[in-house]
């Protein structure tokens, strides 16, 4: 069979790491750097191990790898040339925003370059009349709301990492936040993006109208984890700041009651702006950290924020109070002013670092389940906690059914990391088993690549690969992430069937 030269070279490269010598590696590194320097300023290319070190992982630090080089373009045109160069030279390329990702999505490829987008950090246009902002991908999520605030507007999706994470990263992960139950995820708040493909083409996806005829490639690209194209510009929808926001905090003597209160409240027709649950360990840690006045005798705390016009807010507070009391709340507090509201939120928002002080390491999981299964799933997670001898703290987006169990461990104890990862996988499979998913908002990255085999069958995985190939035929963008190969799933031995359904055999494709 005839094999084109290009194809040959690519395979040779991708297979090289196993047996390539250190000398060879450094030759390639220099060669690449000098080629890139023909169209990039020298300071946009990082090649020394010391300067590359901060880029070796994202916020999931158990996975680390140095890229050959990192490049920090300052213009869209530079991004286009970098991508074209990668294609022509068959070099893997991994995009990176702020590196706050929690699934290893921006983990560098040992034989590739890391495309760092933080220098594309300008707000290009903020039009209060039209309620839109056009920004570059390296702009921090919070910076958009800060810029919009003088006009009484904000950008709704608010991940807890919003001070640091970039809007480009949010698009890649379809990030959510505390307020997405009512205001939606990234996919609901982005109107248009400009992307650069592996061919170096600059393409506008979506539009500033409410409908863009043709395939909804915007929805496809949002949440695609940097596997299909690099986002270089984003137009987001801004919302008017709510007239009033009030926070109701309810404590419960049993976590089951708090879980039930969540579904009951929503069944009563209330869509809170945010509905968060914290368990005892999280409450204690947050209180010790932020001194926010949480009751320390509670097994669970619900933070329920309602917003809108004062009349609606009053009515929703009354309903929330009624539902929480009916579910056995021990104490219900309504923040009486803005400073108390912010203080009570501060505990929730600092819960991750607060829990982080309880153990040398923690592992943040992210799965979604139907809300009505909350109580049951939380109980089974505490069962795992006993079984593996690893403490767990729960602080999560209860309104969305989006769990974030934090497993506490000490990586220095032999075997503990492995036990933690195994327990994490058990939790994710439990999510799938009750009709949920292995990731609600943090993405698959490298972390959950094996767990994908539990959620999708061979035909579905093949379909994902076909889509990937439609955008990136040579598989150069973020290789090895997000979608496992069928071989990998066979090895992992967990090919699963949805629910109790028999698999549909389907036609063999190849």
């Amino acid at each position: 069979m005839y094999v084109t030269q290009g194809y040959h070279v690519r395979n040779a490269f991708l297979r090289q790491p196993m047996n390539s010598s250190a000398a060879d590696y450094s030759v390639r590194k220099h060669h690449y750097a000098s080629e890139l320097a023909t169209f990039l300023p020298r300071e946009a290319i990082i090649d020394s191990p010391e300067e590359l070190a901060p880029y070796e992982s994202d916020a999931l630090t158990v996975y680390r790898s140095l890229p050959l080089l990192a490049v920090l373009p300052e213009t869209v045109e530079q991004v286009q040339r970098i991508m074209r160069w990668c294609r022509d030279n068959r070099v893997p390329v991994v995009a990176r925003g702020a590196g706050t990702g929690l699934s290893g999505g921006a983990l560098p490829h040992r034989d590739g370059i890391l495309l760092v987008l933080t220098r594309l950090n300008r707000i290009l246009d903020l039009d209060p009349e039209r309620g839109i902002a056009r920004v570059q991908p390296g702009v921090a999520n919070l910076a958009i709301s800060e810029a919009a605030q003088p006009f009484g507007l904000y950008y709704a999706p608010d991940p807890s990492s919003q001070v640091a994470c970039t809007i480009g990263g949010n698009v890649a992960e379809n990030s959510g936040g505390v307020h997405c139950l009512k205001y939606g995820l990234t996919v609901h708040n982005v109107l248009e993006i400009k992307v650069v493909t592996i061919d170096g083409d600059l393409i506008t996806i979506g539009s500033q109208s409410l409908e863009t005829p043709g395939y909804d490639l915007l929805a496809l690209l949002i949440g695609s984890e940097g596997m299909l194209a690099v986002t270089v510009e984003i137009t987001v929808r801004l919302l008017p700041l709510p007239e009033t926001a009030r926070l109701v905090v309810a404590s419960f003597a049993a976590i089951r009651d708090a879980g039930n209160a969540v579904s009951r409240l929503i069944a009563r027709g209330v869509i809170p702006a945010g509905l968060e649950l914290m368990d005892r360990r999280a409450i204690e840690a947050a209180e010790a950290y932020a001194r926010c006045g949480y009751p320390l005798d509670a097994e669970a705390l619900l933070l329920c924020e309602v917003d809108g016009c004062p009349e609606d807010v009053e009515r929703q507070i009354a309903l929330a109070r009624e539902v929480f009391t009916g579910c056995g709340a021990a104490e219900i507090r309504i923040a009486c002013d803005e400073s108390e509201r912010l203080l009570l939120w501060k505990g929730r928002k600092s819960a991750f670092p607060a829990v982080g002080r309880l153990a040398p390491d923690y592992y943040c999981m992210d799965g979604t389940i139907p809300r009505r299964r909350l109580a049951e799933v939380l109980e089974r997670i505490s069962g795992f906690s006993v079984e593996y001898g690893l403490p767990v703290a729960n602080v999560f987006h209860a309104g969305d059914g989006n769990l974030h169990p934090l497993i506490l461990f000490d990586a220095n104890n032999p075997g503990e990391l492995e036990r933690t990862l195994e327990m994490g996988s058990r939790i994710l499979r439990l999510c799938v088993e009750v009709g949920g998913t292995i990731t609600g908002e943090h993405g698959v990255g490298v972390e959950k690549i094996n767990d994908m085999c539990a959620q999708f069958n061979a035909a579905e995985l093949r379909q994902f690969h076909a889509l990937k190939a439609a955008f990136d035929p040579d598989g150069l963008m973020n290789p090895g992430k997000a979608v496992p190969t069928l071989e990998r799933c066979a090895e992992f031995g967990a090919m699963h069937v949805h629910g109790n359904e028999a698999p549909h055999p389907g036609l063999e494709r190849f």
Partner: protein
Amino acid sequence: MAGDATLELQALVSGAIRRHSPLNIQGGGTKQFLRPPGSGETLDVTPHHGIINYEPSELVITARAGTPLREMENALAGESQMLAFEPPHFGEGATLGGTLACGLSGPRRAHCGGARDFILGMRIINGHGEVMRFGGEVLKNVAGYDVSRLMVGAYGSLGLILDASLKVLPRPETEITVVLTYSQTAGLAFVSSLARRSLPVSATLVERDKVYLRLSGSAAAITAAHKQLGGESHETAAFWNAVKEHQHNFFRIERPLWRLTLPAHAPLADLGGEYLIEWAGALRWLKSDADPTRIKKYVREYGGHARRIDGADTAVLEHADLPEPLMRLHARTRAAFDPLRIFNPGCLHPLL
């Protein structure tokens, strides 16, 4: 299971694949006017029908593609919930599958989101005859690419929709409609400025010198908003239904009818006809005899899209709507699902 025709549909699709013969997917047949006549054998999806799962406390409903929209709306109304994108039916027997394939949304679009915004998951058959499931019944899910949303508005060309799970919302406690008097240009400016104000507006319509606003929410909130906005009260349910279903007077007069989707702030061009404006300015119906190229030119200039929809026998998109390299991505996306172009060929675009 009664109403589950998955295996039958799969067998029909597989047969068509073997014969390389295209299929013309059909639900209730109410939206034929939105697409060119199909060339292939008709594949009737209506035997695959019924609500599979409805959990009011989860705000989720899952139904088969052939389920009449009416049946879903009735079930939801029984629990004081609704399909918040308020899809038009365009006739008796409209199904969920056809609604999603055409990506149709109604008067709430600008305020609550469109069909694509409420999709949580789907089961589909692709052009290899494989039954596949993407997404699920939970509100947040980023495992794998978002294939289910991609099916919305694809006019069937990426696969046959079997079942879909949708997020639903509580019905507002109260709804009223108020009428204000403005010139059409000022009315457009007014409705498009609503995006900046937190008012409980759930639909807008600008017709000649009148602006109609629908307000939805708690009784107290509605009263407060009405006081702030002023205006006369007007009939609500029947009025918005007529607008949505094109039974409003505007749609009765025989002249070419155009559907323009535009950024809400695009100026109102004089295109020798009459406008009816929805979606806070982003959807404009135009009745006009003007030269089609003139209409399209104006709309493209503002990054929008224009389509003549009365007796449309052309594809949804024409060549100029998808310039390279966007066209290439579309063609490759189609090929990734249906390389033999079995499903509804030429319906969305002459080359797709």
